[in-house]
């Protein structure tokens, strides 16, 4: 059954009746209508102001900056020139930007869609009927990675993967293996899975509580394998949660900057995902106009992803509450 979280309210009825009566109504009714409209406007204004100030204006400003050569310092800081679509043309023709998009796609697919979502579900599934203490300890350990400051986590991973003094090389007896140099993308993907799995685990853990155990039991008695139970019984009931989780972790990962602290986009750009690219050109290079143009392109990519998700969610019957 579809949810109707925002059904008609008393205020809506009051406004509607006030509007219908206002045309030839008594002064009292007209006053009531006016009061209702003013009250409604009063409730809407804060949201409009907040969205306008913190979302619409910055977005419009970003679009404007994207067509200028505005810079952090230098002549273009004092007197930026309008350059039309030059920044966009440069970004779309920049091999480095193309490479960063491709690396970001790998990062999102590897660490969010497959890694965090898959591992998060697996852990939630395994823990769903475990005794309280065991569940709490495992969840606590996984959650720890999520709540630690990103700089601390990054430092831990550098210490783990370092080629000379890394813990991993000591454990595997592979002295001198340069994980961060030879496999930079794999390194940051694994790192991001480790760091972000907790969110998916918690979300799926909550979602699985909505699946009646009797349905799983019935499927099991009918001879369904674990895979079939998940596919035929669980997923249809938690589809909304899955889509919500996929959208959130994909967007977070697409915009994630933490990997910068581990590889700084290196070696030689081989792990330079889009946020790192933008940081490098906009802040390190001081080209704020160009950075704004690239940011707007990235915003479009995120917007398309979000719209696709919403469309999928609507066609499949809603999203997670």
């Amino acid at each position, binding site marked *: 059954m579809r949810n109707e979280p925002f059904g008609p309210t008393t205020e809506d009825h009051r406004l509607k009746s006030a509007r219908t009566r206002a045309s030839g109504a008594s002064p009292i009714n007209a006053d009531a209508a006016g*009061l209702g409209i*003013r*009250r409604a406007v*009063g*409730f809407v*204004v*804060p*949201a409009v*102001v*907040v969205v306008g100030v913190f979302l619409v204006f910055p977005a419009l400003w970003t679009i404007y900056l994207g067509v200028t050569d505005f*810079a*952090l*310092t*230098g*002549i*273009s*800081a*004092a007197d930026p020139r309008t350059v039309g679509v030059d920044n966009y043309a*440069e970004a779309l023709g920049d091999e480095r930007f193309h490479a960063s998009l491709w690396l970001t796609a790998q990062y999102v697919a590897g660490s969010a869609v497959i890694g965090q979502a898959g591992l998060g579900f697996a852990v939630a599934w395994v823990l769903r009927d475990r005794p309280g203490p065991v569940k709490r300890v495992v969840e606590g350990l996984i959650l720890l990675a999520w709540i630690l400051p990103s700089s601390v986590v990054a430092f831990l991973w*550098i210490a783990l993967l370092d*080629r*000379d003094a890394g813990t991993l090389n000591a454990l595997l007896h592979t002295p001198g293996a*340069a994980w*961060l*140099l030879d496999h930079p993308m794999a390194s940051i993907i694994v790192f991001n899975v480790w760091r972000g799995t907790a969110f998916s685990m918690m979300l799926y853990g909550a979602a699985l509580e909505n699946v009646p155990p009797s349905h799983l039991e019935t499927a099991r008695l009918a001879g369904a394998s674990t895979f079939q139970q998940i596919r035929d019984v669980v997923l249809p009931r938690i589809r909304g949660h899955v889509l919500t989780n996929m959208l959130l972790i994909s967007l977070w990962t697409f915009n994630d900057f933490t990997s910068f602290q*581990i*590889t*700084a986009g*290196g*070696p*030689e*750009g081989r792990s330079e995902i889009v946020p790192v690219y933008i940081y490098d050109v906009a*802040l*390190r*290079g*001081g*080209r704020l106009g160009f950075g704004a143009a690239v940011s707007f392109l990235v915003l479009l990519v995120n917007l398309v992803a979000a719209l696709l998700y919403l469309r999928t969610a609507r066609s499949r019957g809603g999203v997670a509450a």
Partner: protein
Amino acid sequence: MTSARTLPLPAAVTVSLTVLLAACGSGASPVTDGTTLTVTANAISGGKNSATADWTAKWLIPRFEQAQKAAGRDVRVVFQPNGVDDEEYKTKIALDLRSGTGADVIDLDGIWVGEFAQAGYIEPLSGTAGPAVDRWEGWTRIPRAVRGLGVFEGRTYGLPQGTDGRVLFYNKTLFARAGLPAAWQPRSWQDLLDAGAALKKAGVPTPLQINAGTAMGEATSMQGALPLLAGAGAEIYANGKWTGASQALKDVLDLYRRIYTTGLGDPRLQQEAKGRDKSFQEFADGRIGVLAEGDYFWRSVIEPTAGVAPMKDRDRAVGYALIPAERPGAGVRGQDFVSMSGGAVRVLNPRSENAALAWELLAFMHSAEATKAGLAGEARITSRTDVNDEVLKDDPMLSFVSDRVLPLTAYRPGLAVYPQISTALQQATAAVTTGTPVDEAATAYDRQLQSLVGPSAISR
């Protein structure tokens, strides 16, 4: 009219928050009966540049306030610490100045002076603080080259704090093993390569470390590409033009190629995010024969007691030599030896409400007494010759830089586009160290340069 009573709660909250935010964002100075001056630097006690932060808080502020009190003025000085990456600090200061706020006295890297001036963020000192600037006693103590750190297009925007120089550090123990002299001074790039070959033959893991690639950032430019370019007779920026794919640049890239594709250097070290820090440790551990670095390496990295990679036998085991030109006389200005220098400056905020007093504070910070106290016992090349004469005499290495390197050194152009050109140069060195042919890397650099400054601003 809607009475206050009927104002919906969300609107009331929004109005209240707006008022509150406006009040919070005013950036007001601490309340005081007298005048308050603010000083900022990328320094924080117990963290980055801790000694500078401690000197500011414990030495400078009490003494300046006391001196003002003796003159009958109630002045309070507030230090605004920072402990972030230089690029983040630069962004913060640029945004402060852009919005008309910021401290009265501001620390800047000398390389930023030009672009801050172009942006209108800073003004010449005499324009901000008046004729008192030109009467300052300290000008006669600052060498012309060092004063240039605070100069852009002939006008002085800041007071230099000090400078540095780049040399070749070498491990005498490894040299002895390779049959090389303890008093080594290469006179050409070939001499450098020959020493590398001898060290390699003696089993030294990394005979030569000339910074390369983008991971080392500006260290690649300052310790590698730029001094080598000067050694090949060219400057990155001269007479209004940037050096493109010239023969000098190709020679530099070819030297990189020879070092990193023949086992004389470790190409992988150049790719690591912490590669420079590792190069420090490897030198201290006796695994690198020759390392091109600034005097910072001597006084802060391998310093026997407080260095980040201390060498107890530093004074005995580490030698230093001038960076040679490609061939004798082939360097910039016909020099046999070359170097690059940088340094920090202090500027005045043009929006200071107490510009004359801020200048007094700035001049006080650069007095001989304050400069000496700021060293906190560490030998360093300051901007003042009178202080250097006193503090460098017991440190032969820093005296060497002061006496032998500074007369032949060069400085980077303080222009806004420089950081991007520097990055392009770093990418070119990265390409050749990983096997890209020299001509191809030079062409790619030139193409990038054209997109940044246009074809007419390039010399080849």
